[in-house]
């Protein structure tokens, strides 16, 4: 039986949901033209198939990616889902179609359009995550550290490991304003509750203490003093640290 090639699926927006779509597509032999997430009203309009998230099916697909393509491909797909590419679902789906056909070799097909675009999206995620390892600015509120970021990609899952290790003794929160999520670290909680990523709609912070203000002004003074006047180069500064980061950087206020 040959594949039908005009199907459009909708899912609930979760990673397991997307993998369930992949499962469904193979089971029904339907090549997908598009995958939309539940929040998108279009799927109701055209009466497309809504795929219920099934953790068991999702797990089967997830394990198959590792076994039949490669562990590196599974990592790529996992990261691909965190990117801000508007077509991430379709990219991942097409990448998996190629992967299940060609096996591990798909990872070398860097000039193939889908593979290229997925790699590119993941590179963007990784470079933004790396930038935020430096650009996150904590403020001290009582015993806790709080930072606000406005990333394009969903960087919190990528950053969690780095910050939880670095501040292993600190209670901290990094609030992702763009996606309404927060990474929370509680060093004194039970092992399973130490690190969590939760949905946060709005964050209202109290005024900062005098001591906090003093350290901010020390840092600003350091920042302004360390630049060499004879070498001022705004173009280089902005290409390394684009203006979209400035709103949350203490030294740029």
């Amino acid at each position, binding site marked *: 039986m040959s594949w039908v090639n005009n199907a459009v699926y909708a899912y609930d927006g979760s990673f397991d949901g997307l993998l369930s779509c992949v499962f469904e597509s193979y089971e029904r032999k339907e090549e997908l033209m598009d995958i939309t997430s539940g929040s998108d009203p279009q799927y109701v309009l055209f009466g497309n198939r809504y795929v219920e998230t099934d953790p068991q099916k999702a797990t089967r697909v997830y394990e198959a990616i590792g076994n039949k393509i490669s562990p590196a491909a599974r990592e790529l797909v996992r990261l691909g889902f965190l990117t801000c590419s508007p077509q991430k679902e379709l990219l991942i789906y097409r990448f998996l179609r190629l992967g299940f056909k060609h096996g591990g*070799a798909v990872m*070398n*097909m*860097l*000039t*193939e359009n889908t593979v*290229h675009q997925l790699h590119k999206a993941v590179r963007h995620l990784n470079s933004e995550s*790396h930038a935020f*390892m*430096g*650009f*996150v*600015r*904590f*403020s*001290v509120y009582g015993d806790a*550290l709080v*930072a606000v970021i406005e990333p394009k990609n969903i960087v919190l899952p990528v950053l969690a490991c*780095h910050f939880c*290790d*670095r*501040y*292993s*003794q*600190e209670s901290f929160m990094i609030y992702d304003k763009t996606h309404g999520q927060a990474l929370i670290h509680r060093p004194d909680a039970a092992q399973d509750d130490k690190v969590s990523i939760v949905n946060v709609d709005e964050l209202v912070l109290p005024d900062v203490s005098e001591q906090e203000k003093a*350290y901010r*002004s*020390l*840092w600003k*003074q*350091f*920042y*302004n*003093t*360390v*630049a*060499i006047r*004879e*070498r*001022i*180069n*705004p*173009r*280089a*500064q902005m*290409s*390394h*640290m684009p203006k979209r980061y400035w709103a949350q*950087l*203490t*030294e740029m206020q």
Partner: protein
Amino acid sequence: MDVYDKLTILTDSAKYDVSCSSSGVERKSGQAGAAGSAVSSGICHSFAADGRCISLLKVLMSNSCIYDCKYCVNRRSNDTRRAMFTPEELANLTMNFYRRNYIEGLFLSSGIMRNPDYTTEQLIRVLELLRNEYKFGGYIHVKGIPGADPALISRLGLLADRMSVNIELPSQASLSQLAPDKTKEAILKPMSLIRQGIQENVTDLVKYRHAPKFVPAGQSTQMIIGATPDSDLKILTLTEALYHKYKLKRVYYSAYTPVMEHSLLPSLDSKPPLLREHRLYQADWLLRFYGFEAKELLDERAPNFNPFMDPKCNWAMNHIDRFPVEISTAPYETLLRVPGIGVTSAKRIVKARRAFRLDFPGLKKLGVVLKRAQYFITCSGRRLEGLKVNESTILRSLLSTKELGMFLPQPQVEQLSLFSDDELGIGTGKDLISCLG
């Protein structure tokens, strides 16, 4: 004087040291009670108005100095405000900046207080406070003070991640003119002590897994560019020797910014030679990652870099007989020598050509800069369709007008009109390079 004023003075006097990186060592925070970690790639936390990365809290312990080096803002004879941090102030500042993720760690240097041994002891006190009392696990870069007791240097090395001793001036002649208190031997001695310490430590670590680590991120140095008449060839040859003989991790170059009027120095109104510094960094990269040797890039006939073209393109133009290179078969080392192909794109080519036959649009996807590379490569035996290969078209695409715009003051950029559009125009058949035809 409060900490705010001290920070201002001691940052201002430390800023001419260009090294800022926090790379070369990976350390998890590990044991309970410890604060901080280190990431081997290094992390930039901000970028100053001069476009340089800020990774470490770069300050001097004290800016009083018993030496009188002519090029230095902290020289004894300079009438400037002096300050000194106490070890507690410094450790406290570092911890509080680190906690807020402003910095990756501390870069501590100092003017010479009383004598080299005393100064080194002060640095040790700060590092001991940070590592032992505050359990600080972040990055520490500390200066080795020429003339200090070897035992003190090795104590310092066990507390730091990176150490550096600045060569400052690339020849003995320049040193004795401008830094009469320093000699080549006094600078090279601590460098070889550190190298020796690192080597012995590697052997120890093989024998005992928990042997304390000595300068695990290696050592670096810095040279001032443009304060003395030393040529690029001299500087690059010295750099190469430092990488090979002293196993340095990095050599930094600092374009000289005039800080005083002196008959032996460039005048106060001269601009720092930023383009020259940039070319040296490009060549430094070629030495470390591209398999080039200093003598391939410069020689006695041409001892300085071409300001109009980067060193790799310059090399390629002088060795045009080695091109074009066939993308589908050329070894990695050969790919690296093609202008427009870097380490990343060369690796991608090697990977991607296993899966597919590569064509020009494909190369673009791999990150190859075709504007430069197109003249030096073939894909499956073919050149890019419609490409006119002659000296003037190649020159036009290799000339780095963008870089020049960034580093040269305006009038000099206009000198580019030496190569007018007509002269560079396509179709000057007599310029055709036969071997490229």
